[in-house]
């Protein structure tokens, strides 16, 4: 069976030019599906509508499947309307990131996104009954938990996140705006100054987190390459990578080379380290320990 590779939506506030150049690279990459759509901040969406339409066309022409993802936290009338509009369109499959989107999509084929709390088979069964075809599991799940879900996945295709900064939290307030002394509604889109998120250090200078507008991301980059065989054995059929700065095509190629059995896990790890330009890598969540940890499963 071929392992499916999915590229998740861009989490950062990248410029239209940067996005287009990025997706031109992705069009020639080894991913099967690209998820588009703004999941973090509704205030970014007016600038994105045309860009996303252009990107979808480009990717579809390159033979990629395109899925649209909804906002993780939709509260205001305008945010709710955005979710309703995405769920209402029938051209592309939609991925739900909150129960409001599940409401709009009930009874129709859709994907359940990583922002839904899918921790156990009981929840998977509810999502399947709602019409989900695939569920992307939450980042903090351990491989052991994923194994148990895999035994009883109610016919859903399971996807696991394997690469990218971990979306750890979302808030109604914007910390990017707060740091710059701005209100959320008058934010001047300052999050676009940090295309890999704003670095947050502890008081002793340790790199800890990234702020991305209303979202808080991990400081380290989750890179579950050594865990790929375990994930596939657990019943995971699709791997999700998140867009990051650096050579994303090389990262995708490293995962593909492992699923095709062309490169060893150690070779792939080295390729990912080279492609991410010295980022600190982590994989602790899958091992049931601190998410910040890098568990060297080759040492044993």
């Amino acid at each position, binding site marked *: 069976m071929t392992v499916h590779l999915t590229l998740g939506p861009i989490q950062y506030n990248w410029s239209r030019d940067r996005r287009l150049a990025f997706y031109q690279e992705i069009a020639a990459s080894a991913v099967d599906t690209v998820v588009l759509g703004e999941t973090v901040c509704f205030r970014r969406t007016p600038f994105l509508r045309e860009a996303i339409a252009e990107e979808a066309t480009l990717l579809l022409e390159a033979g990629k499947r395109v899925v649209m993802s909804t906002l*993780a*936290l939709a*509260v*205001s009338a305008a945010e*709710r309307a955005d979710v*309703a509009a995405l769920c209402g369109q029938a051209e592309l499959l939609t991925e739900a990131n*909150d*129960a*409001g989107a*599940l*409401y709009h999509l*009930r009874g129709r084929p859709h994907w359940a996104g990583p*922002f839904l*709390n899918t*921790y*156990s*088979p*009981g*929840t*998977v069964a*509810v*999502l399947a009954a*709602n019409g989900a075809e695939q569920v992307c599991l*939450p*980042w*903090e799940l351990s491989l*052991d*938990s*994923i*194994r*148990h879900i895999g035994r009883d996945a109610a016919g859903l295709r399971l996807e696991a996140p394997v690469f990218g900064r971990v979306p*750890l*939290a*979302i*808030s*109604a*307030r914007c910390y990017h705006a*707060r*740091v*710059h002394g701005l*209100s*959320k509604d008058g934010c001047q889109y300052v999050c676009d100054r940090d295309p890999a998120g704003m*670095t*947050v*250090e*502890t*008081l*002793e*200078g*340790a790199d*800890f*987190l990234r*702020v991305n507008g209303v979202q*808080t991301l991990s400081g380290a980059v989750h890179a579950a390459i050594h865990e790929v065989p375990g994930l596939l054995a657990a019943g995971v059929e699709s791997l999700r990578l998140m867009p990051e700065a650096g050579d994303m095509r090389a990262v995708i190629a490293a995962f593909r080379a492992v699923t095709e059995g062309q490169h060893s896990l150690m070779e792939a790890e080295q390729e990912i380290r080279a492609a991410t330009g010295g980022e600190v890598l982590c994989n602790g*969540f899958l091992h*049931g*320990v*601190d*998410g*910040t940890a890098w568990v060297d499963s080759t040492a044993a």
Partner: protein
Amino acid sequence: MTESSRPVASRPMPELVCPAGTPAALKAAVDAGADAVYFGFRDRTNARNFPGLNFSHEEVRDAVAFCHRTGVKPMVAINTFPDAADEGPWQQAVDTAARAGAHAVIIADAGVAAYAARTWPELRLHLSVQASAANPEAIRWYRDAFGISRVVLPRVFTVDQVRDTIAAVPDVEMEVFVFGGLCVMAEGRCSLSSYAAGRSPNKDGVCSPAERVRYEQDGAVMVSRLGPHVINRFGPGEEAGYPTLCKGRFRAEGQTGYLFEDPVSLDAGPILPDLAAAGVAAFKIEGRQRGKAYISTVVKSLRETLGGGAAGVTERQRFLEGGRATEGAYRKSWR
């Protein structure tokens, strides 16, 4: 005063829903005038899974019976997300609450809600704030799927949004937090704690786990750590608070300080009439981890405020973490 100028009078007064981390706190809440009390089991099935807190299955049965004898509604919080390896404890929690005759169970997970609706069709289901139902469509989804009677609204709404949400889903009751600690992040969507220190609210019912907390003296400065990470440094005279991750001091853009939130807690006392007029069914007090004195003082004081009195505000605000009160998102001051 004319009838027409007081449309609020036609609505029942919202009920006061109070926390109980121990049987003693439960008694204090009942004595102080709670209309309803919520509590949970001594395990991972509830979001205040702290050492020395919560109820055994037998204590839950006793607590439910005590509430019924005293005319108070017992609500059982089962508001974490089940372990994929063993959903049993969550299902047994629902079974015990239902058999004991709990007024309602407060559920976060869709799978647990489905189990409860299927197994105990007469049992009243409340949707926990941890389910993060942040818009009317989300509430409708839980209503249609599981027949939930009430939703505890996330602490991200303004008063206007509370009113609009009630109008949009009039057949589901809305409960709002009015006092206590505040999550800075959207509840039920946060893995900061497990990233830094292994355990999380969703998986384990724990945020910033106590077994990973350390305090170290650095000269005149008290340093608090969560796992290896410095969360705060307190100078002489500063009270060294618990290192809840999102409430720490960090550095970004050359600035040092409370990056996410200043140390404040919620006191919506001044706007209880606005929230009542908006049509909320219940006011919720946070703090199952707090002692009898907190429960007693806060419940009495909010009861006084609900009755139109002005007494007790200072007494209850003495118990606020950080010592400062905010009306939170309800006033939208930070937008």
